[in-house]
């Protein structure tokens, strides 16, 4: 049973000018959450925004979920003003999570900006299940140092952790795809997971080529629970459920996704 109700903020922290960290007491959601799933969030009483907003689950445990939120527009700006004990309306967990890697192959996880949370959660769960940390390579990129977050948490995992920023203020200067590409070229095999802007995902998919590669997509999400079709994206035709003469099919990012196999995606 999915959950939709009001839950209390256990802790809210402003990490930089545009990132906040939220912990929310929500046992029924925390218990079910899997890496790659997300929640829909509303601020009760804020009725101007007709839709809730989707955020990936960064971690779930002890009856809590953790979110990292980038302040981007109206709703996230309001969220930044919330305080411990305030109430949020949350629906979730939603969507399908990541599939586990096919084998104990090297894992490459590529996070663009606020795309890090689902990948962090995945690493945590895999480590818990005994996956060897030395096989895990996590690439986290952002515009600038102020947009990077959860660094201490990641360092504590003892995995291979690489940073890049557009302006060079932290880690390598440049796109995060570049260090990933360099490393991946060497082995040319392994499992790849990525979450971030569409252009980055396209680049990652190209580099990963025929390897196992799962991407978490973003779309506007009116409902998040599969009823509106507003979040649909084009996938390559596979004679599946909704298909027409134009040679592609649509899948709902919120329901069939947000995680898709790179192979299925129809790049514009």
């Amino acid at each position, binding site marked *: 049973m999915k959950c939709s109700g009001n839950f209390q903020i256990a802790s809210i922290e402003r990490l930089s000018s545009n990132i906040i960290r939220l912990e929310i007491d929500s046992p029924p959601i925390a218990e079910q959450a899997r890496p790659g799933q997300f929640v829909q969030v509303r601020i009760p009483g804020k009725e101007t925004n*007709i839709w809730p907003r989707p955020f990936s689950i960064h971690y779930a445990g002890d009856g809590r979920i953790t979110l990292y939120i980038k302040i981007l527009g109206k709703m996230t700006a309001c969220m930044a003003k919330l305080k411990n004990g305030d109430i949020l309306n949350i629906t979730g967990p939603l969507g399908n999570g990541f599939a586990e890697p096919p084998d104990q192959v090297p894992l490459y996880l590529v996070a663009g900006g606020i795309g890090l949370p689902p990948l962090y959660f995945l690493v945590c769960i895999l480590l818990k299940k005994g996956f060897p940390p030395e096989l895990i390579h996590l690439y986290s990129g952002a515009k600038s140092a102020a947009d990077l977050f959860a660094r201490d948490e990641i360092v504590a995992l003892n995995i291979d952790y690489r940073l890049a920023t557009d302006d060079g203020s932290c880690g390598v200067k440049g796109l995060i795809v570049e260090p990933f590409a360099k490393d991946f070229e060497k082995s040319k095999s392994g499992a790849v997971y990525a979450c971030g802007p569409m252009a980055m995902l396209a680049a990652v998919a190209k580099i990963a080529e025929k390897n196992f590669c799962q991407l978490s997509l973003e779309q*506007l999400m009116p409902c998040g629970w*599969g009823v509106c*079709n507003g*979040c649909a994206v084009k996938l390559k035709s596979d004679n599946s459920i909704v298909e027409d003469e134009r040679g592609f099919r*649509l899948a709902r990012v919120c329901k069939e996704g947000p995680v898709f196999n790179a192979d299925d995606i129809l790049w514009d």
Partner: protein
Amino acid sequence: MGLNLEINIAGIKLKNPILTASGCFGYGDEASDFFDVSRLGGIITKSISLLPRVGHPPPKVAETASGMLNAIGLSNIGLERFINDKMPFLRKCGTTVIVNIAGKQPDDYAKLAERISSLSGVHAIEVNISCPNVAEGGLEFGASEKGAAVVIEKVKKVSRVPIIAKLSPNVTDIVAIAKAVENAGADSISLINTLVGMAIDPKTKKFKISNKFGGLSGPAIKPVAVAMVYKVSRAVKIPVIGLGGISCGTDVVEFLLAGASAVQIGTACFAEPKVFTRSLDELTAYMVANGHNDIRELIGAVKDI
């Protein structure tokens, strides 16, 4: 003494007046994750067309002030897959099932109605002659008395279940269209579908949805919907089902007072899957607080100032 929330619309029995709006509730199966769908007054499906439709390319939606635009483009799985994949769930969902249909031409509607009305478990058909986003979807029919009447007549001739005509608000004279579908044999009228709208993003200078035009729904349009329900329910003898911007029990009462015999909730369930059952509880509380035993006491009971 129990409250009576039951209402008969054109021979269909609804256990309460709160239905799901077409296109906003999929085929009914997703909601079981959140609540007991048998508490609904009825389920109205996404518009079904003869063949599957992918609909318009993304982006298909945009948020607006207290509302949203959509140009889903009647994306749906098509008649055959609907029957095979979705009817089994609907047959045992425990409430009234109304299938919404959309076609490119009057004969499409007739074919859909004939087939769907013969399925066990289908209690009524809602005819979408009012989708503003696609040729298929029938706004061309819904925008004229003649066009609307032709579709309803054809459908009525072949259907074994009652017919609800879903009207477009994008017309000069909604009452004329309502009378036309009543004369053509419609058993009930539902309104309103979405208003034609558009949004442009000044940052990119692009349309916010790929189809340029979209349908406006949500609380923003509620006053337009209430006005049309009021006008139409006073002009026709068949029952009117009201919708447009409903998001709580108080809104349900507003539509009933205006003259609706039942209501549908669409956009509001996106943010709150349980809006149907919450609104039902609020409606019940309103009746208790105001001394009403029967939902029918509210219908059309608005008073002059």
